[in-house]
Structures are given as C-alpha cells and as structure tokens.
C-alpha cells in the first residue's frame, strides 16, 4: 500500500520537475509542434505498464531496502559508540580508585549488556548480508567498542586481548524460527532504537534495561555452556555474528593507547608514581609493532602518528618523575603535571559524568 502511494507521489513530483525543466531550457520553443511533443513525453511518463518503469519500480524497492538497512546499522553504530564511550570513562575512574572491584564489575556488566542489546541487533541486521557492504556504517561503533574492551581487559589482566577472544562475545546462537521473526520485525526494531536513545540521554537505571535487552531471546555463545536447556528448547540453531575485520580491531587498539596515555597522566595526579612506566612499556610494545607493519591501511598510519605523540607524553612524564622525583616530595609532585589530557576531555565527558555521579 505504502509502496503505491510513494510511487504516486514520486510521479507527481516528477511531473512537476519535468515542467520546471521544460521551462528552463524550452523557453525559446513555442508553437503547436512543441506542444504536441510535450504531450507525447507526458504520455510516456504516465504509462506505468512500460517495461522500463516496471523494472525501475523493482530497483526502487531494492535500493530502498538496502539504504534502510544501512541507516539502521548507522543508528546502531552510533548507539554503540555512545555506550562504549561511557564504558571508557567508567574505566578511567578505575585507576587510582579505592573501589576498583566494584567499578570493574560494573564495567563487565555494561559490556555484557551492550553485547546483548545493540550487538545482537547488529548481528541480526548483518545476517545473510555481505558485512563488507555495511562495514563503513558500523566501523565507528565497532572501533570504539574495541577500544573499550581492550581497555577493560588491560585493567583486569594487564595485557592486550586478541580478536579471537573478542569475537565469541559478538557471536550469537539463535534458533531458526527467531531468525525469521527478526527479519520481519525490522521496522519495529527501529522504533525501539529511537526510544532507547532517548532513554539513554536520561539515565541508565535498571528499569530502563529491562525492555531493551532481549536477553531471553538469545544465548551468547560464551555463556552457552551454562544454558544448554534453552538451546534444546529451540528446534534448530544457527550462529549469527558481528564480524571484526582485523583492520578495525587494530584501529580500535590504536585508540586504546590514547586511553592508556590519559590513564598514566591521571594516575600520577592520584599519587601512583609507578603507573606511567608500566603503561609506557605497554604503549611501546604496541607502537613498535605498529611502526613495523608493512603496507598498513592509511587510517592506521594516521593513528600511528597520534600514538607516537601519546607515547612521548608518557615518556616525558616518566622522565620528569625520575628527575624531579629526587627533589620534590611525592605529594607535591602530582601538581607538577599540568595535565594536558584533562583539558582535552570533550563535552561528552561532562555529560556522562552527570549520569554516573
């Protein structure tokens, strides 16, 4: 129904445009012959049964479907970016905090919840598609997510986590019946997304989580072992996933080093004088690897330059600590750092701080 209406309005618009064009360059044309010509053209336009119009109607549908999916994925990616940024700010508070464990478990919960909601929806959108057709739509969100995940794992295990450890979290097992259901529910999905983004602006209280996380509907493969009954209840199962292209992962890692730098500088302010040298080691490992890559993608080359600057900041901090450390008492040393990173915090930070405080 809507399809027909749209066609009708298109045709109308077209006629209007068409008249405009005639006005524009047909000004010098006048007389009966020209008029007859014009009428003829109009006749072809109104003729829906022409094979060209018929095929183009099919093309219209195909293009609209693809563009709609693309837009939905962009939306999801934006939501993932917002959530990941919040996660990262949360993690930045872990360094120097007395209540490390609580903050980390809160972060773990957030990660899980993000996987269950946005990434599950994203995996459904990508199901049966060529993910590379839409990679530009979801890469910003994915990179931000990788940045958050690598940061989280660095804080818990002090090492870099690989793709092989992240990918299982973004792989979901669904029953075949669900897959059918989800494809027909696409329109509803977009509405839900609209609602949740608004909700997120307010606060992320427990009640808000309940409607948006379709937790009963899916089984993350990482928790699969603990929930075999659920699998058994569905008839046939199948895996869907948000694939992580290696380049996207590395770009996320590059962003993660920026967070490392921020953490190193902040922890001096909090009185932890050991942190900068530990962090500098980690950053050096990544920096050295990045500079040895042959034929890196252009984006990665840019980020390597930024990484070098961050590394130098941390190295300068280590140097200052060593030199000045001998002459100034520890509690005053913190003031020596006129934290450049603290100034560089963007507006988003202030916004999300309000949410959590």
């Amino acid at each position: 129904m809507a399809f027909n209406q749209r066609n009708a309005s298109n045709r109308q618009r077209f006629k209007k445009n068409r008249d405009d064009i005639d006005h524009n360059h047909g000004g010098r044309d006048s007389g009966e012959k020209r008029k007859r010509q014009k009428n003829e053209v109009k006749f072809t336009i109104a003729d829906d049964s022409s094979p060209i119009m018929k095929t183009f109607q099919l093309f219209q549908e195909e293009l609209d479907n693809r563009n709609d999916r693309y837009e939905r994925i962009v939306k999801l990616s934006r939501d993932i970016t917002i959530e990941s940024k919040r996660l990262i700010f949360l993690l930045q508070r872990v360094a120097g905090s007395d209540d490390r464990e609580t903050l980390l478990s809160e972060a773990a919960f957030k990660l899980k919840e993000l996987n269950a909601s946005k990434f599950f929806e994203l995996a459904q959108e990508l199901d049966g598609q060529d993910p590379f057709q839409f990679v530009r739509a979801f890469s910003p969100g994915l990179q931000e997510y990788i940045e958050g995940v690598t940061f989280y794992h660095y804080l818990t295990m002090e090492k870099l986590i690989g793709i092989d450890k992240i990918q299982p979290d973004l792989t979901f097992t669904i029953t075949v019946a669900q897959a059918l259901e989800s494809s027909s529910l696409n329109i509803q999905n977009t509405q839900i997304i609209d609602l949740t983004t608004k909700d997120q602006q307010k606060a992320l209280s427990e009640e808000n989580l309940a409607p948006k996380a379709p937790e009963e509907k899916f089984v993350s493969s990482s928790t699969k072992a603990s929930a075999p009954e659920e699998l058994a209840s569905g008839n046939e199962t199948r895996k869907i996933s948000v694939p992580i292209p290696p380049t996207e992962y590395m770009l996320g890692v590059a962003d993660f080093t920026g967070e490392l730098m921020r953490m190193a500088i902040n922890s001096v302010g909090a009185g932890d004088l050991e942190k900068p040298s530990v962090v500098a080691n980690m950053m050096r490992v990544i920096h050295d690897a990045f500079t040895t890559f042959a034929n890196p993608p252009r984006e990665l080359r840019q980020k390597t330059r930024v990484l070098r600057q961050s590394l130098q900041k941390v190295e300068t901090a280590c140097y200052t600590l060593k030199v000045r450390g001998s002459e100034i008492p520890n509690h005053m040393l913190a003031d020596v750092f006129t934290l450049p990173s603290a100034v560089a915090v963007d507006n988003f930070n202030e916004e999300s701080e309000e949410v959590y405080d």
Partner: protein
Amino acid sequence: MTSTADIFNHFQDYLNADHELREDIRSVVRDLEQTAREIQTALQAIHQPSQCANFIVLCENAKSMFGKAEEQYALLAGKIPENQYYRFNDHWKFVTQRFVYLSALVVYLKEERLISREEVTKFLGVQVKREDGFHLDLDDYLMGILNLTNELSRLAMNAVTAGDYSRPLRISQFIGELDSGFRLLNLKNDALRKRFDGLKYDVKKCEEVVYDLTIRGLVNKEGKVE
C-alpha cells in the same frame, strides 16, 4: 592465550595476504580495462556517417569480443573469497560500469530497448544475485545505464549529420523513459545521484535535436509515430 606478539604477527600476515590479493585483483582488472577499451573502440564507429547502415555488423563484432571479458570475470570471481565482494569491489566497480554501458549500447543499437540486468550478467558471465556469488551490483548497473544515455545523446546528433532523421526521435523517447524510470529511485547523496543529476543534460540535448528537426520540417509524421 595468544601473546601480544602473536596478535601483531597475525595482523601482519593478514596485511600481507590482503596486499597480495589486491595486487592479483588489480592485474586482472587491468586486463578487463584493456578488453573494455577494445570494445569501446569497435563501437565508436557508430558515430561515423559512413557506418550508419552497418550497426548490426558492428554489434555482432562487439558482442563476440565480450567472450574475453567473460573469461576475465571468471578469473576475477575465482579470487574473491565468499561474502567479501564488497571488501574489494572498488577495484572493479569502474570497469564493470563500463561493461554495462557497452553491453547496453550493443543491445540498444540492435533492438532499441533497455538491456535488463539479467542480460548484462549473461554478457559478463557473472551472477544476478549476491547470494549466488560474484554478481553485478545494482549501482554499477544503473551507473552503466546512465553512461549509455550520454553516448546516445551524442549518437542522436551524429545520426542527423549522417542524414538519419528518425533515430533522434526514437532516442529522445527512450532517454525520456529512462529519465522517468530513474526519477522513481530514492537516491542517496552518492556518486549515482551525482551522475543522475547529469542525465537532464542528455535529455535536453536530445530534445534540442528533435526541436531542430521538427521546426525545419525535417521529420514527417510517420517518423514521429515510430
């Protein structure tokens, strides 16, 4: 547990494989471009006044040259891993659009109608649907068709020069139909949209030719009905 060094080594392996594959693709695409140029050269003869009657022969000749393209596409398709068409399609996008245009021109000259997407895929030996493997992207097909209108508007003028006064009328009608077809599409602000914005100039060019012929009484009424 993978070590940090492993992570980076794997990525380097990935980069190397990616680089190698792209080099491979580039070399096949270069061959494809050569084939496209050859067909293009063969078809350019339609603009010469002396060749006007020879369209059918020219088309058959051009059509036989597509066999080479088909082989090259098969070679290219073999290099692309499943479900990664869009990871690499920037490499062959342009040449594919060119082939769409060339095959559309052949079909138009022979039968004066729009080539369907299915027919193009038969010319090139690729698939229609993405699910079936190496396929013809809809955008590339549409782009190729838009290139066709440009060539036809040129042909309309040259047909007049060669003394064929009825062809411009038919071309004008055909381009008008295509124009209304394209107006059905909700295009995003991308390359296709930009190219489509140029379509009105082709329409205009043809209409001007028709106008010139009509005002001088060079077309009889029968020519118009046709």
